């Protein structure tokens, strides 16, 4: 059974391009339809909580489902399964690219790919913006983090701890939503 958990989640890992929302239809098919390890509602719950717990959403969701089906060990095995293909595939690609990095054509390709990465990150920020910045107080938090992290070399951990506390304080003071 543990082996089956591992294999199933390894398959989900291979089919997940980019993570996040791309994962949902694949989870539905593999977990709900094929194995019946969780219902659609449970899956959405896990996914929602997986977004508001630390770490990679795909790993969080895998741990939830694995634990439900196979206890603590099941949770660990499912998580290792979902990351297994990444480790293999990326290690192979990184090994190859390191050997080809000196070729001028490869350098040209990556110079242009970096431009594409800028645009992709910009699009990701725009997509997150709506849900993340619903009011003026959140906008101020955003600007504070953005500017301070741009001009000072502070660890992101400091911002995360500060903003979690700020979120609680702003909500308590009734500033939220204004």
């Amino acid at each position, binding site marked *: 059974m543990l082996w089956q958990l591992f294999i199933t989640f390894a398959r989900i890992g291979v*089919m997940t391009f980019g993570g996040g929302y791309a994962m949902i239809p694949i989870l539905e098919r593999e977990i709900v339809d094929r194995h019946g390890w969780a219902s659609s509602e449970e899956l959405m719950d896990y996914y929602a909580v997986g977004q508001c717990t630390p770490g990679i959403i795909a790993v969080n969701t895998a741990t939830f489902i694995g634990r439900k089906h196979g206890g603590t060990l099941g949770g660990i095995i499912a998580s290792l399964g979902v990351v297994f293909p990444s480790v293999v595939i990326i290690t192979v690609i990184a090994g190859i690219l390191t050997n080809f990095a000196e070729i001028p054509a490869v350098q040209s390709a990556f110079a242009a790919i970096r431009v594409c990465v800028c645009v992709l990150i910009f699009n990701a920020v725009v997509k997150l913006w709506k849900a993340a910045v619903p009011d003026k107080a959140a906008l101020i938090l955003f600007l504070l983090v953005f500017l301070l992290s741009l001009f000072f070399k502070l660890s992101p951990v400091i911002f995360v701890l500060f903003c979690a506390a700020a979120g609680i304080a702003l909500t308590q003071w009734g500033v939220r939503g204004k």
Partner: protein
Amino acid sequence: MILYLRLFWEFFKTGLFAVGGGMATLPFLYSMSEKTGWFTQSQLADMIAVSESTPGPIGVNMATYVGFETAGIPGSVIATLGLVTPSIVVVLLIARVLAAFRQNRYVDAAFYGLRPCSVGLIAAAGLLVVKIALFDFDLFAVSGQIADLFRWKALALAALLLVLTRWVKPLKKLHPVFFILGSALVGVLFRF
């Protein structure tokens, strides 16, 4: 051995504090690059591209890549394990009290503050990529010519990609891998 332990610890921290999915690990990787010198910021930009174009969650792919660049194959395994360990522990603890966790007003309030934080950190990390991809500060420092500050071909490509990914309906839904491969081709053809 010390390197492996440090690698594990750095990614453990990333896994514990990066909230909100793959891109949220980006600011942590930038800070890691500055602090440890294990890899450069321009290598990091390339890693993002590879991570987006290969199967698997982006955050996991980036951890594996950074781990490999830092300490070879053991590095890729150790970095990934470091990244997922906090997830596994936290989720196993929360799973028992799932309903209470979801409805807890303090958790909800903390996330009200964490979401703009996450977007702010990602945006700042994105600007670092912009700095190396669209500008050439090294050449500008030598020549002093304003025109040398901009990578004109890169700016043109950025404008084109922005239009294609945001305003052209049938292309908007395309997977990023197509834009990444297309850009690679443009880069080779026009000698970026």
